[in-house]
Every structure is written in structure tokens, then in C-alpha cells.
């Protein structure tokens, strides 16, 4: 799918506004949009919103065999999915260049900065370790995906609890969650990224660009840093040159922003833990509806648990099932006497009183009946009809071109009908609950309900 392109006048307008240090939403140049962090019902599920950009992260764990070169360490696996719902230009399944960029940035930020202690994930050296998998799904793209994903990922990692393990000799027991409380991951520090958009060859900087600003920027710089001013990642892309003092300036701004966001993450984590302990409601269900910003209330609707009146269900069901019950039972019992012929040990054929290309596969010879009942292979029937067009019967008196059924076709249907009648008689003992009468149909009305023999 193609996305809406940005028009030239829109582009000029945005650039002109930015040159005057004005942003469309009235923010300051170094200010973030409102950040909302919600935790889901499952442990390790986190939904982050920066303005309209939405990202969902889920952490899961699995026991695997460790790498040969690092037998004592667990594995942290990051996977960022740019879902087509985020932007029409994202394709499902295929990872675009932008997807690879976001993926790599997140890997460097979280995995290479060693924010999770991988040695604590080891169960048995060289044999079993935990693999922690972080799946990040981008739900809506309104700019600044890398920052949003980093907040979601690290918040989910801090929220996650893995099952407890006891090792006794060679035996490894993984305790299910109802037996022993789950254990949090050991998070060394909380690295977050801050994205800067550069305009006018680096003279103007914007923090947290929206999608519109991203489309017109010269380039961007992503600074990965934690609360203690330790730099974890630096990523520059786009067509611009960056000066040394700009980098230092950006890092300082980033450190200030990251401090605020880290406090927000810790705050929301505590609230969620408290809610779980005290038995209050937690999860997306109500939170999402309550907290979404900038959206009309009229778009949300909520209804409490509803009861359904099902008093007559049992009786009605019984009526439906028993309607034909006796006939079915009789036929099932009679099925044992069906015509099964075994020509060769290991191969058997069952004919069920039906025409339609009798199977000649088992038998060596061809029977005459097959010729008449040969299926409507185009070539053969046209061949035959060209030889034998004698009587022509007009079927309907409609205004459209009349259908001509050759005598051969008529013969075929006559034959099938007579066989049908034959077999019906043959089945003597069984009662045919509903029979289809009425060959006389004036109109081609569908009637009410089923037609079947």
C-alpha cells in the first residue's frame, strides 16, 4: 500500500515554521509529547504512547542450549515488528530498511549495553540457559519510533517475571507460576534513547519529531543514555554533517530528558505492582479506555457483565437433534452392509449407490455403463454430441437464448433419475424422512428450506 506523500507546500510550510522555532503542537523544541505507559495483564506486557505514536512490547522466556562461545550466558533476543496498521507503507512479513534500522538501534541500546545481566540467566553451564525474547509491535506511526520502542522494551523487561528454577545435581526443575513466585530479571541500568531531528544543516534541533517533522528533516541523531549519564548508543543517519559541539549539546539535553522518563517508568511500575498486590484491577481493559489522550469520549463505550437468558436452550437443542435421530441411527447401523469390494489385498473400493464416473481403477476392464456416465470432459462430450445430435428439446420459454439439451444429455439425466428411483426402492427398509416431490415447478422459486433426497 502506498502512503500519502507530503505535498511541496506542506513541506515548505513546516520548514518555515521550524526556522522560527515553532512546532505545530506548540511544544518547546526540547520537550517531549505526553508519554503514557500502561502495563497489560500478562507480566512483561507494556504499551507506550508518545503523543499518537503507539508501541506494544511483550517479553517471553524459553529454555535453550547456549552458544558455544558463551556457555555461561543467557540470550537476549530483540524483534521489532513494523505492523501494517502503523503505516500503510509498512509491509507484513518483509522487513524494510527502516525496520532494520529500528531493530539494530534497539539491539545496540539494550543488548550491547548489557542492561540485563545475562549471566544470571544461566541455569546449567553449557547446557541450559534462558532466552529472553522481546517482541516489539509498532501499532501507530506518528514519528519517533525508536524512542517509543526503547521505552516500551525496557519497561517490559523491568515488568517481566520469569519462572523460578531449582537445580539439584543433574535435575533441573522449572517451577510453574502457581507453585513458586516468579523472579524478576536483574536489570543493571535503564538505557533510553532520545531522538534529535536536524534541520537547516544542523542549525535547528528538535527533540521527539512527529511524523511530519521526520519527513522534512535533514537527518537525525539518536542518543542512547541512562540516568547516570552513561552513553550507551550513538546513531546518526540522514544527509547532514554533525559538528562536535552539537553532539555534546545533544547528549546533555538527552541526559535531562532521560532522567524524567526513567522516573516515569519507575513510578508506573510501582503503581502496577501495588495494584497487583492489593488485588485491584490491572491490565489494558479499563486503562486503555480511560487514559488515551486527545481522543473524544464518545468513541469509547463500556458495558458491564451481561447475562444471557438460556432457559429454553436445552429443550430446543434436543428437538433439533432428535428430529432425524431415528433415521440416522438406522442408516448408521445399516452402513456395515454397504457395498465394499476388495480386489487386491490392501486395496478396497466402496460404491455408495451413486453415479458420476464410477471408479475403474481397481478393475481391469471397462464396463459399458461408464461410457454413458462419462463425466463432462469437454473434449469427449463435444465429440459425442457432434455425432449424435438428433432430437433437440427446448427447456425454458424465457427471453434469453434457449438452452438446448441434446437427446444424449436427456438420456443421461433420465438414466440417473431412473437409477435414483431404483436405489431408493432398493433401500426398502430405511425410511426416508423427507422426500423431495415436485418436479412441477412453475417458477424457479427457491422455496423455504432444504431440498434433498
Amino acid at each position, binding site marked *: 500500500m502506498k502512503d500519502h506523500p507530503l505535498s511541496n507546500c506542506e513541506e515548505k510550510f513546516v520548514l518555515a515554521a521550524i526556522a522560527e522555532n515553532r512546532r505545530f503542537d506548540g511544544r518547546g523544541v526540547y520537550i517531549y509529547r505526553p508519554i503514557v505507559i500502561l502495563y497489560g495483564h500478562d507480566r512483561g506486557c507494556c504499551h507506550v504512547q508518545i503523543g499518537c505514536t503507539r508501541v506494544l512490547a511483550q517479553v517471553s522466556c*524459553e529454555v535453550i542450549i547456549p552458544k558455544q562461545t558463551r556457555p555461561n550466558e543467557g540470550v537476549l533476543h530483540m524483534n521489532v515488528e513494523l505492523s501494517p496498521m502503523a503505516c500503510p507503507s509498512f509491509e507484513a512479513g518483509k522487513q524494510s530498511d527502516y525496520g532494520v534500522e529500528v531493530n539494530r538501534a534497539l539491539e545496540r541500546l539494550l543488548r550491547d549495553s548489557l542492561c540485563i545481566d545475562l549471566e544470571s540467566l544461566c541455569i546449567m553451564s553449557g547446557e541450559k540457559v534462558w532466552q529472553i525474547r522481546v517482541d516489539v509491535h509498532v501499532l501507530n506511526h506518528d514519528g519517533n519510533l525508536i524512542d517509543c520502542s526503547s521505552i516500551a522494551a525496557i519497561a517490559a523487561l523491568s515488568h517481566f517475571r520469569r519462572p523460578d528454577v531449582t537445580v539439584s545435581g543433574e535435575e533441573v526443575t522449572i517451577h510453574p507460576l502457581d507453585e513458586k513466585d516468579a523472579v524478576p530479571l536483574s536489570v543493571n541500568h535503564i538505557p533510553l534513547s532520545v531522538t534529535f531531528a536536524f534541520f537547516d544543516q544542523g542549525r535547528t534541533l528538535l527533540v521527539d519529531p512527529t511524523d511530519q517533522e521526520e519527513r522534512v528533516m535533514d537527518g537525525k541523531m539518536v542518543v542512547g543514555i541512562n540516568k547516570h549519564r552513561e552513553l550507551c548508543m550513538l546513531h546518526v543517519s540522514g544527509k547532514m554533517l554533525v559538528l562536535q559541539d552539537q553532539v555534546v549539546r545533544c547528549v546533555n539535553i538527552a541526559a535531562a530528558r532521560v532522567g524524567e522518563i526513567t522516573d516515569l517508568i519507575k513510578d508506573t511500575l510501582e503503581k502496577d505492582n501495588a495494584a497487583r498486590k492489593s488485588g485491584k484491577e490491572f491490565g489494558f481493559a479499563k486503562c486503555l479506555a480511560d487514559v488515551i489522550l486527545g481522543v473524544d469520549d464518545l468513541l469509547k463505550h463500556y458495558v458491564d457483565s451481561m447475562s444471557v437468558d438460556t432457559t429454553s436452550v436445552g429443550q430446543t437443542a434436543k428437538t*433439533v*437433534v432428535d*428430529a*432425524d435421530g431415528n433415521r*440416522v441411527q438406522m*442408516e*448408521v447401523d445399516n*452402513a*456395515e452392509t*454397504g457395498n*465394499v469390494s*476388495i480386489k487386491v*489385498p*490392501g*486395496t*478396497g*473400493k*466402496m*460404491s*455408495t449407490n*451413486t*453415479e*458420476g*464416473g*464410477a*471408479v*475403474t*481403477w*481397481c478393475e481391469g476392464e471397462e464396463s459399458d455403463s461408464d461410457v454413458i*456416465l462419462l*463425466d*463432462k470432459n*469437454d473434449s469427449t*462430450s*463435444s465429440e459425442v*454430441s457432434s455425432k449424435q445430435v438428433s432430437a433437440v428439446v427446448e*427447456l425454458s420459454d424465457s427471453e434469453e437464448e434457449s*438452452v*438446448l*439439451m*441434446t437427446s444424449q*444429455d436427456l438420456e*443421461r*439425466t433420465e*438414466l*440417473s*433419475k431412473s*437409477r*435414483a428411483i431404483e436405489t431408493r426402492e432398493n433401500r426398502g427398509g430405511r425410511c426416508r424422512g423427507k422426500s*423431495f416431490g415436485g*418436479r412441477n*415447478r412453475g417458477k*424457479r422459486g*427457491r*422455496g423455504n428450506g*432444504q*431440498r*434433498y*433426497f
Partner: protein
Amino acid sequence: MADVFKKVEPAEYYRRHLTHDARPDGRQLLAFRDVVVSVGTIGTADGSALVRLGGGGTTVVCGVKAELASPRPDTPARGYVVPNVELPALCAATLRPGPPTALAQTLSQAMADLIENSGCVDAGALCVSPGRLVWALHVDAVCLAHNGNLADACAAAVVAALRDTTLPAITIDDETGRVRVDSGRERAPVAASAFPVAASFAKFDNDILFADPTAEEEALATATVTVATLEDGSLCLLHKAGGSAMTEKELQQCVDRAQVRGAELRHLVNKVAASKEC
């Protein structure tokens, strides 16, 4: 003339036949095509079966290969079955060579669901040494000709093949931990008692119910239903993917017809299996 009309107005062609109470291939509305079942066709497989519906109809061959493997982490004392349905380009004009199509993947998933839900293979019996070694059965069904009703043919082939599958006895040396296949002892059958049979139906013109649709009928159908029944009359699969709405009475008719079909097909496969032994 008739085939020109059929090409130009296929639905109308069918309706004209229905006024004479028959389908173009001459069957009654709720009649199934003839079935040929052949078991033990593939000598190199641990179990195999071939099912053919009608003359020149849908043909599916299925082979089962057993492999010793480590169990899945969440089920250390159970083996597992891995079904795979292949629709190669040769089976229908509309298919092209390449990665598995959505239809093939859906059928593979349907077979996996059928095997698991019906319990036709006892996964616990596939365990050789809990936590260390289990049997993994690879069930590969290949469609050789596609003339409608793949679900029934695949299900019949897969279940017949599993019923034909036998596994050799395994001994594990306690000291050395070596695994040995005991070819001297008799091979043990794999299948459990449950014998699911699938029957498919199509609805035409929002009104008329057909059993065992051919490829043409499937193209004209407004809805398709597949019902899988077990010997005791219970159901293990009832699948209707979209299409025109059906009432509960219509669904019950499908279920009833499927019960009868199940009994017939079980009778056939049991007889064929018995004939192979003697």
C-alpha cells in the same frame, strides 16, 4: 452446446440440472462419490495410505515416517505428530510451484487439529524414555489430483496411514545410553481406538445442500461445511469458514449425514486393513 453454456453461465447450468433433481455428474444431492482406499502403498514408509474419491477425482497419498527425537520442553513424556499437506502444481491448473499456499497451510493446520482433537494417536504411547527420547511422526500428505473436497480426502488418507503405521521396539542400554532398534521383535501399532472421519458439504444458491462437492461445485458454492465424526457419534470437528448463513437445523442435517458417512468409511478402511493382513 451444453459445455459452452456451462462455461458461460456455470450457475445457471447447475440450476437447470437441479430442476431434474440431479447434479451434472448424476449424483443425488447428499450422495458421496465412490471411494478407493489403499493402505500400505509406500514400502519405505512406516505407514501409508492412498485415497481416491470418484473416477478422475481427488487423490491424496499419505506417508508416515517415524523419527526418534528429544521431546518438546513443555511435554517431556509425550511424542508428537507433525502433519504436512502439500498441494503441488500438478494437482490443479490453478496452482503454481512455489512456497506453500494459504490453502495448503490451512489444510496442514486442519490435519494437526484433527489428529490432536480426536486423539487418534496416543501421544503418551509414543514416549520411549521420558524427558530424553520420544517418537516424532512426520505425516506427509501429497495431493495428486484436486477435484474438490480436499479436506475429506486428506483426512481419510492421514487417518488411514496412521492406522497402518507400526513402530519398531526400542531398547536403551542403561550403562552406555546407546539406543538400539530391535528389529527382531514385532512392530507395535501406533493408532489409538478413535477413528475420525471427515465429511464436507457445500451450499449452493444459499439454499441447496450438496455433499462431497467437486471442484466446479466448490467454485459455485456459497458456503462449505466440514464435519468430522467419531465412532460413538460424537463430533471432533465442525468447521464452516464464512459463506452464507446456515440455521441450526441445516447444520444438524450435515451432522446426521456425516455420521452415516463415517460409519461407511470406517467399515471400508477396516475391511481393507483386514484384507492386507491375511
